[in-house]
């Protein structure tokens, strides 16, 4: 840009692709995803664009691809520099379905880039709100370890650990939750302990919302979006199989895994209903959990490809549903009761904005600080896209993958006065 001499540019969407592909980048001016947005408009000969998120498989390192754009020829390389496919409009259309079909007639490579950009980085809009953004991007490529929760309804912790040791399974307890285990094993679902219901395979952060909800034996709890039942059964475990948990799940297809998990884990206090959560008819309940359907961006480490499906539009679509669910949950709670709202996404549209919209101006609700000892959380944001949100939202918690080496999560705790 500045010296006018370096006419080759390399855009790298996460710092690690360059190192991983072993491309000598000293000859290039490098742009990382951060400043790629500020890319000079008059440069036409961009040589290499590196993607790391797209097409990433489940291999240990993820599968990077590299798109080389040189004049009018575009080539796609995979990790070992083998040509995956030379370009056609196909790639562009894969990356951006709205790109024009007559891509070859485009004169400026920059235009191609323009077509690519929307899918390059849907996480990029969180640059301002995520602390240490570079580490945040880098960790998206690392697969998440398996984790499980010990089901104390069926077995004591000590006895289970003994059994696992006997079977030669490597494990490590979470430092913040004694019943959580990191498992170092290929397919934990096939463990005999899992089939007998002594453990339940559950993502680490998915154990947070029930802890924030804090159900006590004998209470009545509503889980508005229950399937596949990880949080439901954790609630039931915390209640020692006493009291009542209503697990609501509108989708018939998702009832089967919910039932199967409840039965396998020996849960006796869960009743399953099939209402639309926005119109769940009867209450009141002592506590309500809304683990809302979301764009699941925080699951990227577990199931790569989630990010390519998420977009602001999708978040805004989901927002309508989420506000409806949370409003109904607030209605169904007893005075003095607790509502926990959680998602596994970073999008403020699905998190803080939902909480703000559902609470409205009502005086009867207040947010309580979400804090799990041993787990580092970031405060909920109070400003987004130039819009001021209510200050109280900083009591809610955002969990980022690079801070605790987990997935991503958002949890809000609302108390009805």
């Amino acid at each position: 840009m500045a010296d006018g001499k370096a006419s080759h540019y390399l855009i790298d969407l996460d710092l690690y692709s360059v190192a991983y592909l072993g491309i000598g980048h000293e000859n290039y001016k490098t742009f990382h995803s951060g400043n790629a947005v500020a890319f000079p408009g008059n440069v036409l000969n961009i040589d290499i664009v590196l993607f790391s998120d797209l097409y990433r498989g489940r291999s240990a390192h993820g599968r990077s691809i590299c798109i080389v754009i040189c004049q009018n020829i575009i080539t796609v390389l995979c990790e070992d520099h083998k040509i995956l496919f030379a370009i056609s409009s196909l790639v562009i259309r894969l990356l951006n379905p709205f790109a024009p079909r007559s891509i070859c007639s485009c004169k400026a490579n920059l235009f191609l880039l323009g077509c690519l950009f929307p899918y390059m980085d849907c996480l990029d809009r969180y640059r301002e709100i995520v602390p240490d953004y570079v580490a945040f991007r880098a960790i998206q490529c690392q697969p998440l370890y398996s984790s499980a929760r010990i089901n104390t309804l069926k077995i004591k912790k000590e006895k289970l650990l003994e059994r696992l040791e006997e079977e030669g399974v490597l494990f490590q307890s979470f430092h913040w939750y004694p019943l959580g285990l990191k498992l170092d094993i290929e397919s934990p679902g096939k463990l005999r302990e899992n089939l007998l219901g002594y453990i339940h395979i559950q993502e680490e952060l998915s154990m947070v919302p029930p802890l924030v909800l804090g159900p006590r034996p004998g209470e009545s709890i509503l889980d508005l979006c229950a399937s596949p039942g990880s949080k439901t059964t954790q609630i039931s475990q915390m209640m020692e199989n006493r009291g009542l948990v209503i697990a609501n799940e509108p989708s018939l297809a998702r009832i089967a895994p919910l039932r199967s998990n409840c039965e396998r884990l020996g849960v006796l206090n869960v009743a399953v209903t099939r209402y639309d959560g926005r119109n769940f008819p009867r209450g009141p309940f002592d506590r309500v959990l809304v683990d809302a359907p979301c764009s699941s961006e925080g699951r990227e480490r577990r199931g790569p490809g989630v990010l390519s499906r998420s977009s602001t539009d999708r978040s805004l679509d989901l927002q309508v549903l989420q506000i409806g669910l949370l409003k109904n949950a607030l209605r169904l709670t007893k005075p003095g009761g607790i509502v926990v709202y959680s998602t596994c996404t970073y999008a403020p549209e699905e998190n803080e904005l939902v909480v703000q919209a559902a609470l409205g101006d009502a005086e009867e609700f207040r947010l309580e600080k979400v804090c799990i000892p041993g787990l580092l959380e970031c405060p909920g944001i109070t400003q987004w896209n130039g819009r001021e949100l209510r200050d109280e939202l900083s009591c809610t918690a955002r969990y980022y993958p690079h801070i605790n080496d987990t997935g991503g999560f958002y949890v809000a705790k609302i108390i009805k006065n």
Partner: protein
Amino acid sequence: MSPRSSRIRNVFEPLDKSLIAELWQYRFGIPEQAFAGCKFFRKARSIWAISDVDLPHLSYETIGMRIMSCKDRPWKPTTSALQIFGRYAAKNLIHLNREEAMIFLEGGSQVVETDCEIGYVVVFYRGDVLGCGLYSYGMLVSQIPKERRMTSTAKSEACPV
């Protein structure tokens, strides 16, 4: 026949605890105290158990755990129910050794020696209840639900054709 609405289909009828307890006492020698804090319901030909609470008036898909199936005669306890209540069993139980337990968990049938009565039995391995088995004429047939079976790694070796 047109599919009926779930509002009509999902009718749970309360059952008397002593009725259920008597059946379990008769077959497995499980005392009624094992079911303390439970309520029972019947829907179609299944019997369900849930913790003793007042259920709000809703349309339910399931209530607690399905513990018995009365589709066939005699009634069959579910594996999930036996994993909870089975440890109180005093009769009609079988203890397996490691190899037998593996076959059982994989869903296989095997010859075992036992003095059980013919019918459904509680299967134990090292003090844990594995689940429900069907014992008849020297054969123990695993009744573990398909999705909860262990997948056999050495099946081809174990069952020579």
